[in-house]
């Protein structure tokens, strides 16, 4: 039976993320209580594992790194059908860039036991870096394929996948263990079911800190991060808006005139 680890991240709800602003005076983030949700593409990664579980039977561990509140999104993944939930949480992990995050997640993956496949969303909706999946593969010294849009074959020793490239795709045969990052095209994530939520109530989330991973405090969090944010600056608006008013019909007529004025219609 394949052991699959799915890495998930708690992100500010992308639909409300625009409400997070930089205070132009203090240059700190104003979060305005934006709720945290499972990173959308990580749900696609979990769905890959869940569909395999239905087909052939696999064991799914969901792994996340974050503050204790991120346990909620791990719980949600258990309710969706994952077998085991692990949260890496320790003040020492805070302030990690992608390098330190990937190192910490890789250490966590090793601690979960033998694994065959690691699945991640291609990118997070808040950071949009795409680095964590590939860098986990480096720390685990296993291969990676990013932007997987179709799992063509998934046997015990190797997976055949289609992975997006600019204007096309590549068909690849990848020996396990391996890391795959997935795009939205790979599947449609299922919705939470009532029975899943009830079942997940009984499952405990394991929480591991620095001591549990047995890694140096210098390798994680801010200390283990090669990059740092040196400045946060609010951007000044560059355009003066003219609001077009009136009834809906009038607004459409007035806007059409403006569009005609560009000479492009």
């Amino acid at each position, binding site marked *: 039976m394949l052991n699959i680890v799915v890495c998930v991240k708690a992100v500010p709800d992308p639909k409300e993320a625009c409400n997070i602003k930089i205070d132009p005076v203090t240059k700190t983030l104003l979060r305005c209580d934006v709720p945290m949700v499972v990173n959308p593409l990580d749900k696609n990664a979990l769905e890959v594992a869940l569909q395999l579980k239905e087909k052939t039977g696999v064991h799914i561990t969901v792994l996340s790194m974050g503050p204790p509140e991120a346990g909620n999104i791990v719980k949600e993944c258990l309710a969706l059908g994952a077998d085991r939930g692990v949260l890496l949480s320790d003040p020492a992990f805070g302030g990690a860039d*992608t390098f330190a995050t990937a190192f910490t997640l890789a250490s966590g993956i090793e601690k979960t036991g033998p694994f065959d496949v690691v699945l991640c969303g291609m990118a997070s909706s808040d950071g949009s870096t795409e680095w964590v999946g590939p860098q986990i593969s480096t720390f685990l010294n296993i291969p990676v394929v990013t932007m997987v849009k179709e799992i063509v074959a998934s046997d015990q020793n190797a997976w055949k996948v289609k992975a997006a490239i600019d204007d*096309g795709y590549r068909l690849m045969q990848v020996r396990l263990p391996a890391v795959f990052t997935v795009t939205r095209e790979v599947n449609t994530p299922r919705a939470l079911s009532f029975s899943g939520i009830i079942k997940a109530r009984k499952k405990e989330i394991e929480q591991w800190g620095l001591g549990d991973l047995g890694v140096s405090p210098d390798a994680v969090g801010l200390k283990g991060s*090669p990059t740092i944010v040196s400045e946060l*600056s609010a951007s000044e608006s560059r355009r003066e808006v003219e*609001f077009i008013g009136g009834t809906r019909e009038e607004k459409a007529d007035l806007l059409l005139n403006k569009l005609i004025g560009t000479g492009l219609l």
Partner: protein
Amino acid sequence: MTTSNRSGGAVWVIAEQIDCRLLSVSTQLIGQARKLADELHTSVGAVLLGNDIKNRSQELIAAGADRVFLGNAPELAFYHPEIYTDIIVNLAQAHKPEIILIGSTATGRELAPLVAARLKTGLTAHCIDLVLDENRNLEQRIPAYGGLLSIICPRRRPQMATVAKGVFAAPEPDETRCGEIVEIDAPNRGSDRIEILEIVREEPEGVPLESAAIVVAGGAGAGDLEGWKQIADLAKSLNAALGSTRPAVDEGWTELATMIGQSGKMVSPRLYIGVGLSGEQQHLVGVVDAKVMVAINSDDKSPVFDQVDYGIVDDCRAFVPVLIQKIKAYQEKKVTC
């Protein structure tokens, strides 16, 4: 602190080719690398891997490279994550560049984090500007939360960044420039972990975003697939390219290839119309030098209105069909006149 000139490592660009043609982002990055290298009093290096690409080295030199590390072998014709990573890591360990820049292409986005992790250094994603700070660290700017973040990698080298096509202008090629071409050996081992069975190229549909004169971009405000189709119809009625924000892609209304912004495509239309989107920096940095910008959003306090010339406060699902009608009526009248 010493700031000794000429002793520092070079500024490198990992160039990319498809079917033996250099990608435009590679020469754009050489142009920016040249500026940084001149300020640092160092040289520009380019790494180019492929097959039958010897003549491309001169293009990199004409764009500003002093030295091209050329891997020219049949087994390098296509990007292979493990083989390419091995070559670049070995070169970087031998020559110790100060900075490595990589295009934010599909392959660059896989290769860059692999190289950075092996070199145990930092990597900043999809920068929209690269400058040197007062300590001669590379200040890598990315849009975030309605502003800009400046990221530095002060303690490790090389400093690495990816940059999308169109962020930097292509330099004027100078065919008289001279440079050194260093041929590197093809790897003597392949990879037994990843086998590339097939590369398939697909023609993109519709008006290409990057060269479109009009771009209509839709966001979460479309509400559902039906609302999204209206925005797509608006684009069609204007013969515009259809773009999107990440929430629209995440909802599954449109393909990733339509995403505009920091981690998507850069567009420079003459007219941009943003529909049902909030004007996040990560999206709007992808709209460069648009002559006229329009936003349609139901929230009159939406930050998008700080970034456009004309604003319509209305529910896009109700407004867009009316606008399409008006546009069609105008176009029919124009044809019959």
